[in-house]
């Protein structure tokens, strides 16, 4: 199966369920059911995930100084959509493939807003679709500027 492997682990589901405040028994134990938004946690297994500090590489957050706005920074998550083909349980490995989707722009209060989509298909070892995810990000046009310029 192609795509980035995402081993769905019981401990990871438990941590994620606790973080969203869902301590129902369904999300606990060796065959725990994944909560509906758990697929986002596949970022942990993405070797190129932009929002994870890496040993030996500059991280944009604060250290001795306040940090820096990264290239293309200032973007926000505008929408998130999931389609579930079947439930996901601990113990299986999914394979994630992400492709760019549409992009468009809109006039916002302080200038143009650039929207872009990413579509991720999570498949099982047999290649069957399990969850389809669509992320919409929005970035204000121009260089990232501090929000007091709004």
């Amino acid at each position, binding site marked *: 199966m192609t795509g980035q492997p995402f081993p769905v682990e019981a401990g*990871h589901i438990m*941590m*994620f369920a*606790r*973080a*969203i*405040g*869902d301590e*129902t028994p*369904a999300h606990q134990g060796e065959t725990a*059911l*994944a*909560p*509906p*938004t758990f697929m*986002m*946690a*596949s*970022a*942990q297994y*993405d070797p190129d*995930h932009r*929002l*994870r*500090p890496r040993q030996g590489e500059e991280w*944009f*957050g*604060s250290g001795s100084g*306040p*940090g*820096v*706005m990264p290239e293309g*920074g*200032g973007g*926000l*998550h*505008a*929408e*998130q*959509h*999931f*389609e*579930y083909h079947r*439930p996901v349980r601990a113990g299986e490995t999914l394979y994630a493939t992400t492709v760019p989707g549409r992009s468009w722009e809109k006039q916002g209060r302080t200038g143009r807003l650039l929207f872009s989509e990413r579509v991720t298909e999570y498949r099982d070892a047999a290649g069957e679709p399990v969850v389809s995810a*669509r992320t919409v990000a929005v970035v204000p046009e121009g260089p990232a*500027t*501090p*929000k*007091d*310029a709004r």
Partner: protein
Amino acid sequence: MSLSADGIKVGETRESVLVEDLKRTRIVQYAGASGDYNPLHTDERFATEVAGYPGVFAHGMLTMGMTGRVLTDWVGTEALLTFGVRFKAQVWPGDTLTATATVESLEDTPAGPVAHFSVRTVNQNGAEVVTGIAAARLEP
């Protein structure tokens, strides 16, 4: 667990308080579990001095994840067919969030009955932070 088509009516709603006085630590907890370590959410100095926000704010996905409970507590996780949201406003430390799900329509599909929901989560001032829709399979 799955609801039967007889057990649910159009217009029916469920409300759930998702969090009271959201703590910064909770946002850190979500960052660690999800793998989204954007300092906007956990690094007060970066959020204020570099990004120019009044402080750190919650991941949209933390709010969406919490919002999902109003659906899964009602219809069961296995029954969900779709869940999608739009992030309308930021969620700040100290916020109290309440989610409401409403049955908008019931549909007979070749695969069986399906319920369509609208969902909305508001903060303590009544401002919408998340709005969305979901669909769930019902027992015939």
